[in-house]
């Protein structure tokens, strides 16, 4: 009986500790980024925006097992929602723009979820690809709203809380991004450990079994898609606010595929994996493309092959495995 109480209390404590470590890690990494690359905050802000996209992808792919190569539809919808709110409706408060992004992303999530969840496996991938092309084409067609292929410009967000300008040096945007990321991270930690999160993990392994428990996998997954859309929408809004332009590339297949690559690189099914994959991929890409623009694609390809061969569970997944194995050996 004693042992049971120990395990009972130990479990939640351990994961709360892990949460605190995670939050601390994000804060430390953000501060380090700020101190080490004070002149490169725009890149770092961009990494945060993409990290939000990858986190959102992890929710449906990592936690629910949905294969998608069209997740930028949610990100881009958020970006356009925030951009259109600012450029056409004069909603230039950054917080309201973020809200617009959340709404845009969530609605896109609902649409994508309803369609993508109709198939599984390869056909599901193809559905997601078709959707991203439709979204892209739609944004291209609606050029009076979106600026078409020239991009949506004329977004000029107000200073944050009336006093912090989104300026050239990008400090405001960066700090704003870090706070958004932290908020999202904390909320998602709650989400994935909640009963709902548990349900999603169950669906990933065996949707039939979940049905036999009286829960509907479809409705659950659509809910998750909407949440995922909101998260991606925050990323999109951050992108729109910090760069003040939204381009069709934010709704592209390429962006979707890159997000998936980053997620698998970091390791699916864990929030840290998603963050790690994004940071590693984007820094690697930035470094290699600056060092050797002509061959960077080859090197990125080699990196991906290397990861599949040496770290099949992704960077974080494999690292976590090694660490737990070490710990178990010690005890």
């Amino acid at each position: 009986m004693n042992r049971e109480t120990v395990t009972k209390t130990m479990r939640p404590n351990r994961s709360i500790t892990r949460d605190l470590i995670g939050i601390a890690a994000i804060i430390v990494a953000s501060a380090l980024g700020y101190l080490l690359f004070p002149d490169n905050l725009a890149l770092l802000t961009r990494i945060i925006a993409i990290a939000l996209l990858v986190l959102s992808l992890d929710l449906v792919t990592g936690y629910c097992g949905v294969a998608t190569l069209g997740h930028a539809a949610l990100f881009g919808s958020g970006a356009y929602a925030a951009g259109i709110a600012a450029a056409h409706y004069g909603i230039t408060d950054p917080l309201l723009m973020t809200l617009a992004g959340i709404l845009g992303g969530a609605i896109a999530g609902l649409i994508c979820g309803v369609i993508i969840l109709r198939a599984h496996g390869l056909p599901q991938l193809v559905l997601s690809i078709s959707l991203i092309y439709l979204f892209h084409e739609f944004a291209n067609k609606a050029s009076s709203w979106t600026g078409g292929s020239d991009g949506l410009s004329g977004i000029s967000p107000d200073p944050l809380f009336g006093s912090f300008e989104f300026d050239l040096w990008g400090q405001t945007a960066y700090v704003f991004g870090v706070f958004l990321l932290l908020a999202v991270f904390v909320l998602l930690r709650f989400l994935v450990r909640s009963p709902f999160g548990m349900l999603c993990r169950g669906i990933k392994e065996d949707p039939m079994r979940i049905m036999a428990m009286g829960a509907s996998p479809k409705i659950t997954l659509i809910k998750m898609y909407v949440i995922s859309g909101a998260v991606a929408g925050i990323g999109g809004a951050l992108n729109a606010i910090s760069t003040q332009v939204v381009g069709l590339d934010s709704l592209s297949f390429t962006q979707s595929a890159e997000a998936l690559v980053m997620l698998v690189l970091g390791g699916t099914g864990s929030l840290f994996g998603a963050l790690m994959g994004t940071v590693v991929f984007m820094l690697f890409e930035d470094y290699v493309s600056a060092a050797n623009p002509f061959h960077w694609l080859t090197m990125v390809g080699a990196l991906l092959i290397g990861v599949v061969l040496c770290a099949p569970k992704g960077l974080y997944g494999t690292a976590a495995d090694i660490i737990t194995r070490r710990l178990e050996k010690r005890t």
Partner: protein
Amino acid sequence: MQTVFSIAIDAFAYGMVLFIISIGLSVTMGLMRVVNLAHGAFAMIGGYIASYAAQDLGLGYAAAVLLAVFGTVIISIPIERLLYRRIYGEPELTQVLMTIGITFCIIGIANYVFGPTLKTIPLPPALQGSADLGFRSIAVHRLFAIVCGLAVAGGLWYAIERTAFGVKLRASVDNASMAAALGVRTEIIYAVSFAVAVGLAAFGGVLGAELLPVEPYYALRYMVTFLVVVSVGGAGSIPGALLACLLLGGIDTTGRYLMPEFGEFFFYLAVIAIICIFPRGLAGRAR
């Protein structure tokens, strides 16, 4: 009426070109269960070899095609041995990561070796120019592509359904361990199938070069088209792939004639509709 006829012929020709390039992918994805995003890269290698053989070595078209097919297969052997073998049976996402990585590498190398410009494969005089069909003219090489497409479809169907190899292949696909227990050497079956798939990719890359010109980003540019066509058909099914190519070719061509502005919408809406109605593809088998 004449216009309808004319569009039908265009659709047929386009569908057959799509078929030739995609059918190899259907083999890898359906029979070997590998989401092979690098398929276009192999088609591109075929195109480059043929272009090099014809332009720089001065070989004839037939020789260039043969060289392209066998050259690509030879290049693919070490790739299959070292890389693909590691991802058979792995989750789809791992396969996506690996094959995208391979695609990136091949693009980078092609860019380095052949440069970024477009490459063409000169056609022999017999395939140049247009043929008069009475009510319209059509490029001879398109007719050639149609004939080749039909030949490939027939040949593959025969090989899979009627030969001893086909029996072993289908047995390995349905139940690898059972097939192995019965004495089928599944590794060899897989290696041969992979080589056939790659060879078909190269063949398609060369034959389709008039429509999809060879350049380093070929592998990424058309990756999605191939993937879509194969999935709509139902991976692994030759009649399915043929049907999907003709159907999508038809929808695409008609859409682009009637409302070119919304060409993309037609195509992808059709894909979504088909998959929603046939979640396993047109000829997909229940697993």
